[in-house]
């Protein structure tokens, strides 16, 4: 048995120094074009710029809800990793999105995600999307994420 205590890391601080590293390697995140702007322990902020190719209603020019889903899903997953003391990736179990009001055409959307509880295998998150402040919300999200066990030797783990 290995009783040696595992080394603890400040993952949020590491992520904070490499803000968009986790995002840049994700093709779909590059397609929607959001950026990570700030990482604190269990808390991640990001920016989703408006773009023509993301429009979900040609008459109003409002971007599609799926873009906000992608944005908040990603930020929530990152908030889970930022809450940990060793590097682990997470997979979304489920995510609920409530749309409060449409985002305005041509304006950036601010996203904020928080991992408010963490067990050995599951993370619980909430997230917000807005233009200016959390008082005037575009959407909120509540999610649960499964913590992936570290893969050893590159073998495919069966889930």
């Amino acid at each position, binding site marked *: 048995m290995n009783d040696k205590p595992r080394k603890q890391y400040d993952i949020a601080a590491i992520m904070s120094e490499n803000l968009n590293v986790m995002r840049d390697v*994700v093709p779909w995140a590059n*397609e929607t074009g959001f950026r990570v702007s700030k990482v604190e322990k269990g808390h991640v902020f990001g920016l989703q710029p408006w773009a023509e190719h993301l429009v979900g209603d040609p008459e109003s020019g409002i971007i599609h809800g799926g*873009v906000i889903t992608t944005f908040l899903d990603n930020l929530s997953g990152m908030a889970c990793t930022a809450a940990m003391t060793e590097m682990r990736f997470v997979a979304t179990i489920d*995510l*609920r999105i409530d749309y409060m009001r449409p985002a305005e055409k041509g304006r950036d959307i601010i996203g904020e995600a928080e991992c408010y509880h963490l067990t050995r295998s599951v993370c619980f998150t909430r997230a917000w999307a807005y233009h200016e402040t959390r008082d005037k919300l575009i959407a909120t999200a509540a999610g649960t994420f499964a913590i992936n066990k570290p893969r050893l030797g590159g073998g495919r783990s069966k889930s």
Partner: protein
Amino acid sequence: MNPQLTNPRADEIDSILKRLPFAQTLGMRCEVLGDEMTAILPFQEKLIGNVAIRALHGGAIASFLELTAMLQVFLVSDMPRPPRPINLTIDYLRQGHAKDLYARAYVLKMGRRMASVRAEAWQENRAEPVTALMAHFLVTSD
């Protein structure tokens, strides 16, 4: 003209998809037979969410399912335009592999003010869905 498009709403679904920039970004299309619609998301590299295991991005799958649910409500209603979403819950059941994805949506209830819709996405086996979605849409005209 596609002879399969017997439902007059089917042509409208086609033109909605063509006019929606985000649907074009996803690259999705729909096949309609009567009141039954299958949405197809042909695989593209940009839909990947995890390059190491080559899995589709959950956000891309969710976007595809939300559009499928929205179009199904439009198909079975007489609304002049597609409905607006109120909320949705997505269950990620299995990993989406780097191949085509299919989806179908079922309107569980079409009310006067809102519609409850369930949608499922699958790849090689319909009985093993990759992702499930439950959504509510506002169907009032005002």
